[in-house]
């Protein structure tokens, strides 16, 4: 069977690589893991290309957790939605594997790195092929774990350790939502399997919970909290920019193309539930637009090349959630699909840039590099054009379709989301081209030593980026009919709720906004109109606010982290060591000692004292003997 081979080959190769790691040269593990993922990729393409022959199926492997009346199985589910994800994950993963063999070749832990990204690929595939929530959760945590280990890959750096921990913990906060969602689903539906849940939906519509939630609203809201953690939505996004501490291929694979889109995948998977949850859909729409907006505003002020792209990822994920919030699930999947390729192009291109500039990440210290690294330059252009939604590129089809649907979304939140999506399209163009102009044009701001050393990446690094950029150009035009045309039977059997088709026109006024953004970036950074200086000096407050990332990290430190640690200390020092210890053993021993000392003084040793005691007792006893027996 093809499906188990796709999923388990990367795991097998990762384990094999781990076992042989100490005994062979690193290159052997590189080849092994890359071949493994390549094999998965070929099989996934075989499954994906004959679009019309999808046969939804579930392969049960062996039982996992027995619940009352229902046992969860380790199983592999296959339907069109899974097919899309398999294609994205294996393709990007394979290209990133190839890229990393060269990019990481000088690192001591390169074998460990390859093993971990292979393991990650396995967990991601395991996540998307899950047939029930528990297994999805297993993949969900597995990718989080690999992300943790890869962000903390350079474990000598304290910043990397902290970033890794932060990513894991913030994700865990989201996971709590997912767990609660699962508990509620299990309580009402008696099962955690997707198909069974969707089948039972009609009987569950009218149940309402305390606090005024309807059952569906509550469940989907909890699931959305889980998705917010993974997909870095506003509030739980804080880990994503810090995650850039990891090696660049990791950022491309995990923090742009695959893992962060798991939340979108989960929401699309649960679209039949969401359709019955209008309140949650509004919340998703709102959070999605806030995320898209806030991340884009931060991206325009940042100077770290990877962080700019990270915030851009955050912002694009916001678009996907806006699509979900307006019920346009296929559009969200489509944007996920195209975004994976162009964002991976951008990240790997950024990796080449960083490589060329001797590990410099600050774009203010770059410039005038296009002559030295022409291929990288071209790739970054392609990636950026796709990102801003320039017509023939893939981003155009997905993004324009989302904006198009948003323009028809009713309600005040819908209008708000539509306006935000337009404004963010403008901002996206601005920061994308700000990056390109500052890195590749203008005058060089780097050290002479660095400039002398600027060089194009080796072909093993260029090949994957070229492949990705080809995909970034053509994948949209190739597949948009498939994703967006409801007449095609592509989505049959996937339980994804379909939405009306979108008709494109090249003269959409929406297209003007990105052009405005490019022009503005060109004016400021090429023609050096001092608009940015004006903003910095006259709108200092806003600029500072954006530059410090809306001060959310500081806010969390003050509001959540510090109180928790002080509470922990208080509980330990006061609760355990003072109160419980004081009332428990200390009090007992001290009272025993005290009473012993007091009673000791009764034992005076004088016979006269004892006689008095005996006499008192006798006086007390005699009446008892006489009157006590009358009853």
């Amino acid at each position, binding site marked *: 069977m093809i499906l188990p081979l796709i999923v388990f080959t990367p795991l097998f190769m990762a384990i094999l690589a781990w076992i042989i790691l100490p005994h062979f040269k690193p290159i052997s593990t590189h080849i092994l893991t890359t071949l493994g993922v390549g094999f998965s990729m070929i099989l996934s393409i075989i499954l994906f290309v004959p679009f019309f022959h999808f046969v939804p199926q579930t392969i049960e492997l062996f039982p*996992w*957790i027995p619940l009352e009346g229902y046992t969860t199985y380790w199983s592999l589910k296959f339907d069109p939605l899974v097919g899309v994800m398999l294609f994205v994950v294996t393709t990007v993963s394979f290209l990133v594997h190839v890229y990393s063999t060269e990019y990481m070749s000088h690192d001591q832990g390169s074998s460990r790195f390859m093993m971990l990204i292979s393991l990650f690929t396995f967990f991601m595939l395991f996540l998307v092929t899950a047939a029930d929530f528990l297994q999805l959760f297993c993949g969900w*945590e597995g990718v989080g774990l690999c992300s943790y280990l890869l962000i903390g890959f350079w474990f000598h750096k304290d910043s990397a350790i902290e970033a890794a*921990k932060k990513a894991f913990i913030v994700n*865990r906060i989201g996971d*709590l939502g997912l767990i609660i969602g699962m508990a509620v689903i299990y309580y009402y539906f008696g099962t955690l399997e997707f198909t069974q849940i969707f089948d039972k939906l009609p009987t569950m519509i009218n149940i309402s919970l305390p606090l005024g939630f309807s059952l569906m609203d509550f469940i989907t809201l909890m699931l959305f909290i889980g998705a917010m953690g993974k997909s870095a939505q506003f509030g739980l996004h804080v880990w994503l920019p810090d995650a850039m501490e990891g090696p660049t291929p990791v950022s491309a694979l995990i923090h742009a193309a695959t893992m962060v889109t798991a939340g979108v995948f989960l929401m699309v998977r649960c679209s039949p539930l969401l359709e019955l949850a209008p309140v949650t859909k509004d919340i998703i729409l709102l959070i999605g637009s806030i995320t898209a907006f806030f991340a884009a505003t931060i991206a325009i002020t940042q100077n770290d090349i990877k962080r700019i792209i990270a915030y851009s990822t955050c912002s694009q994920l916001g678009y996907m959630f806006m699509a979900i919030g307006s019920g346009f699930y296929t559009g969200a999947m489509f944007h996920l699909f195209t975004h994976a390729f162009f964002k991976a192009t951008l990240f790997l291109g950024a990796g080449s840039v960083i490589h060329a500039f001797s590990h410099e990440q600050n774009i203010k210290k770059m410039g005038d590099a296009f002559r030295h690294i022409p291929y990288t330059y071209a790739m970054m252009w392609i990636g950026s054009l796709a990102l801003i939604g320039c017509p023939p590129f893939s981003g155009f089809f997905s993004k324009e379709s989302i904006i198009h649907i948003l323009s028809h979304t009713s309600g005040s939140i819908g209008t708000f989301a539509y306006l935000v999506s337009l404004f963010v399209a403008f901002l996206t163009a601005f920061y994308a081209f700000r990056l390109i102009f500052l890195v590749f044009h203008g005058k060089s701001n780097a050290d002479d030593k660095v400039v002398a050393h600027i060089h194009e990446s080796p072909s093993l690094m260029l090949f994957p980026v070229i492949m990705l950029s080809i995909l970034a150009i053509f994948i949209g035009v190739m597949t948009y009919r498939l994703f967006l045309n409801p007449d095609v039977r592509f989505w049959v059997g996937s339980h994804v709720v379909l939405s009306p088709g979108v008709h494109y026109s090249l003269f959409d006024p929406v297209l003007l906004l990105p052009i405005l953004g490019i022009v503005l970036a060109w004016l400021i950074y090429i023609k050096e109109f001092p608009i940015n200086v004006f903003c910095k000096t006259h709108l200092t407050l806003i600029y500072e606010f954006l530059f410090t990332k809306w001060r959310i990290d500081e806010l969390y430190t003050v509001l959540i982290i510090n109180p928790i640690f002080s509470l922990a200390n208080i509980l330990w020092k006061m609760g355990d060591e003072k109160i419980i210890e004081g009332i428990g*053993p200390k009090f007992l021993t001290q009272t025993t000692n005290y009473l012993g000392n007091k009673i000791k003084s009764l034992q005076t040793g004088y016979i006269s004292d004892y006689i008095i005691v005996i006499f008192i007792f006798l006086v007390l006893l005699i009446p008892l003997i006489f009157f006590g027996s009358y009853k």
Partner: protein
Amino acid sequence: MSNTLPLLTILWAMPLMGFLGIFLMQKNLKNALDNSRNLALFVSCATFLFSVAIFFQFDSRLDIFQLVEKYSWLPMIGMRYHLGVDGISICFVLLSTFMSLIAVISSFHSIKTHPKTFYMNILILEFMLIGSFISLDMIMFFIFFEGSLIPMFMIIGLWGGENRVYASFKIVLYTLTGSILMLIAIVAISFQMGSTSIKLASHFNFSMDSQHFLFLAFFISFAVKTPMIPVHTWLPDAHVQAPAAGSILLAAVLLKLGGYGFLRFSLPMFPEACYTFAPFIQGLSVVAIIYASLVALAQTDLKKVIAYSSIAHMGYVTLGIFSLKHEGITGAMYQMLSHGVISGALFMCVGILYHQTHTREIKEYGGVVGSMPDFTVLFFLLTLGAIGLPGTSGFVGEILVLLSAYSSSLWLVVCAGGGIILGAVYSLTLFGRIFWGQIHNKKVKELVDIQGIEKIALVSLVLIMLVMGVYPKMLMRVFDNSIKDITSILEGISYE
């Protein structure tokens, strides 16, 4: 039953024979150390293998209690020599023999003073633990339950750290206070029933008033052992002061006596009282989870972090048991077994580190991965198990408990889930501080990676943890019928 050999008595006598063997050894011989530890290893290994054989002898589809041995002992109070195992206790027997073996292995290099007495204590502790899991008579159970305290007292008091006297005093004070009440309750039951058989008592209809009293008496005793908030403070001290072997047995098996007691006594004997007190106990469990996790966060001592995390994990156990639902109890049972393996292994790891560096302060470490790569991988996997990542045994128990807790209240799930977040915080902080980062301690640079028998032991613990996490049915199949028996009693009450 076809076999006539008193298998359980043999199993139970094996560590006792080992104890006598070491006792009869000459003390002043040069190779007393080697002799005693080799004999202890041999005996604990043989006991473990024998218990595995018994485990396979056990057929969960047959009777609830199997391999029963019954002889009259003190007829005037109805006491009998009554042994037998059901699906629950056979798992615990296996856990005790296995962890005793691990405890012996972990003391191979670390115990140099009075080795003879030390291994005698370990074996007698194993004897007591097996005894308490297989006895079906309350007085016998009480004797073993209490008896396990004596070798533990000795292990902490003689081979412990700098503050060992206070720690061993505290463990005795707490546990004794609890068990006096249990003794009173047992006497009361024996008066009412004319027998001290556990099997009889689980189908005996106690009156409502006496149920409340008896339940509370047993509850306090088991709560101290589990330990639940607020009677938990003996545990961190005991763990910190105990030598590695003591910590392993304490965390892995001794704490499980509390949970086992709930399953064996509280639930089947006093079902009405369980329903009365369950909300209160569930609340207390959630408080324990959050409280212990928070306190673990503030610790600077390696062993204390793991000790407090034990308290938090046992909070899931009591939460699950007192959900009084099949899934909750199954989850609690699984959580106990899983915690036995994981925390035992973690304390073994700490012992390995402590033996080489002689410090428990977290800030003294950092960058251990450089000198101990294999050890780091194993420790990390165990950390994942402690966090409860899916695929490890820790997840199975926790998720079952959480899924069943919703039927009581949403807030239980929210709070217990909050404990999961905090668990990740303190566990990963601990891992990051010890294994990652720069090396700033000369001793850390000189650390030697694990090898030999210790490595085999640790690797097998990790493998057990993973297998338990991926294919839990293997064990659940064994104790499922016994739990169904308990839940049928509970459900009989709830429908009346």
